[in-house]
């Protein structure tokens, strides 16, 4: 492809997975997390993978450009960008609004879709809409598909691990499907939606140079960020709870491996206690 891609990555912040989460009643009947505004945040893990894959693809196909579109509280987005900006070159598109998991997917998709549609110079015929296959917040895996539909993109791919830009300008895409298999498809040209799974590449190292180059645009994008009013839509929440994961663990120590093996074999065969 001579002209390259315009890759828009949708990804926002989620609580650091190492933080314990506790649900509390929020305002307007929308559940929230205890001390949510104080919780350290990271870029949503699968969305982060899609950002790194976007950077790789953009590097491989000259003329490509990467945008990162994020919806979240402006102050937290700014904090998040201090680390994310060092990972890959991108142009930031910020929308000021709530990023919690209990906010409505359709309203979030509408706000992000409008923001992406308004990116100056975005060529929709070259558009690849990237993101994670599900967020680590809402955890539904529907927002990206809805944004794609709003932008008029019928070709959508889910749980993508590999994208290859072929010499004839087409894209070969491998999606995870049932049974540990890949569904392999050929997309003749953009636009398309690609919701990423874990990919096959490691996280890129931090690059202070890339961070410096990104930061000016990021600060400007944060200043220009429009506010989005997002609620829980028509959802009425009942009980929200952390599943009880605690089990009474029987600890077996100082036992010969023969005995353990026998006990495990019985258990596997459905004969153990």
């Amino acid at each position: 492809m001579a002209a390259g891609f315009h890759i828009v990555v949708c990804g926002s912040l989620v609580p650091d997975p190492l933080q314990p989460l506790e649900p509390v009643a929020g305002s307007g009947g929308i559940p929230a997390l205890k001390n949510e505004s104080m919780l350290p945040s990271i870029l949503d893990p699968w969305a982060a993978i899609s950002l790194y894959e976007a950077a790789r693809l953009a590097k491989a196909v000259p003329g490509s450009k990467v945008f990162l579109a994020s919806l979240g509280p402006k102050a937290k987005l700014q904090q998040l960008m201090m680390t994310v900006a060092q990972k890959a070159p991108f142009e930031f598109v910020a929308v000021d609004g709530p990023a919690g998991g209990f906010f409505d997917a359709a309203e979030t998709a509408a706000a992000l879709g409008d923001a992406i549609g308004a990116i100056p110079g975005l060529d929709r015929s070259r558009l690849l809409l990237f993101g994670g296959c599900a967020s680590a917040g809402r955890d539904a895996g529907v927002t990206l598909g809805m944004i794609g539909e709003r932008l008029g993109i019928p070709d959508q791919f889910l749980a993508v691990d590999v994208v290859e830009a072929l010499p004839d300008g087409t894209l070969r895409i491998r999606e995870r499907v049932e049974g540990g298999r890949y569904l392999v498809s050929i997309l003749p040209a953009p636009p398309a939606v690609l919701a990423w799974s874990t990919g096959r590449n490691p996280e890129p190292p931090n690059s202070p140079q890339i961070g410096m180059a990104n930061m000016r645009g990021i600060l400007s994008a944060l200043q220009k960020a429009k506010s989005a009013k997002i609620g829980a839509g028509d959802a009425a929440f009942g009980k929200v709870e952390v599943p009880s994961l605690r089990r009474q663990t029987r600890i077996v120590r100082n036992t010969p491996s023969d005995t353990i093996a026998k006990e495990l074999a019985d258990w596997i065969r459905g004969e153990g206690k």
Partner: protein
Amino acid sequence: MESILVLAHPEADGSLQRSAFEAVGAGAALSKSLGASLAIGLFGADTGPSASAVSAAGAERILAVASPELAVPRAAPDAVAIAAILKATGATLVIAPGTSRMLRALPAVAARLGARIDTKIFAIAAEGGKVGIQRPFYRQRMSAELSRTARPWILVLDPGAFAPVSLAAGSAKAESVPVEIPDACRRTRHEGYEAPPAGAETLRPDAELLLVAGAGWTKKQSNGQVRLKDAESLILDFLAKAKASLGSSKSLVDQGVDGHGALSFLTHLHQVGQTGATPRHAKGLATCCHGEEPHTVGWRFIRERRAVNLDANCGWAQGKADVLYVADAFEVLGKLNAVLKTT
């Protein structure tokens, strides 16, 4: 008054997956609770055998979109077919199995028709004519009950969370829903499937047992040596003998990707946990795993759990497993393989 539509798609051989029968069962139960009408919508290249397979489900209508364009999963034509079925039934509640094919197409359908959608649903209740669901948030770290007033409401069920309905073999001819799939929805070309080489499958979603291999397998052992080849052979031998599926912690999968010594057969498809899968198996055996909360999420849906490692305070096991064997996994797995061999 609600009207319920259950969506399903046949596989390449014309059969319906177990998850389709789970959705049919959930739809029939909800229809009974609410006194609502029930329809079943099928889409695929040939929906005839599927229509017969669900003919005894008690649905008032069975509708189908059959087209060669629907022979393989592609989001664009699938979305056109699903939207047509939904419009033809005017359903207020749509129940679908959470297959990759459904999950790929349904968000776009919801946006197109102004429907609401929830996924990964593991419980549905109907009380006083009001429908409520339960689904996870924050990568299964919490669950919530919710209901909605907007219709249509698309409910995508988590595979394995509902009991499949057992139906007597019957015969039925589905009402054909006419659909024209526009050229713009035919662009994606199916090239095929990539599967592991025959005999080398280590992912078995239907297996009774999940073996979770952690990074400890690649660390120096008591003799001061890394025993990577031994680890590979022990694990593969166990998987073959126990007919188990393999999962792995993120740290071990990442070792392979980063080019460090790792188990050669591991890919990101094996990863379970916060950024991996949360498979459903009846039993799980964790070996050499030392993760904390983000990784233990990976075996939340494993009913019976045991662990083998050298750390009695391991986060994978304490409070998460039913039994923790504080022992050398190399020794235990070796002996276990020998015991399994003799039976």
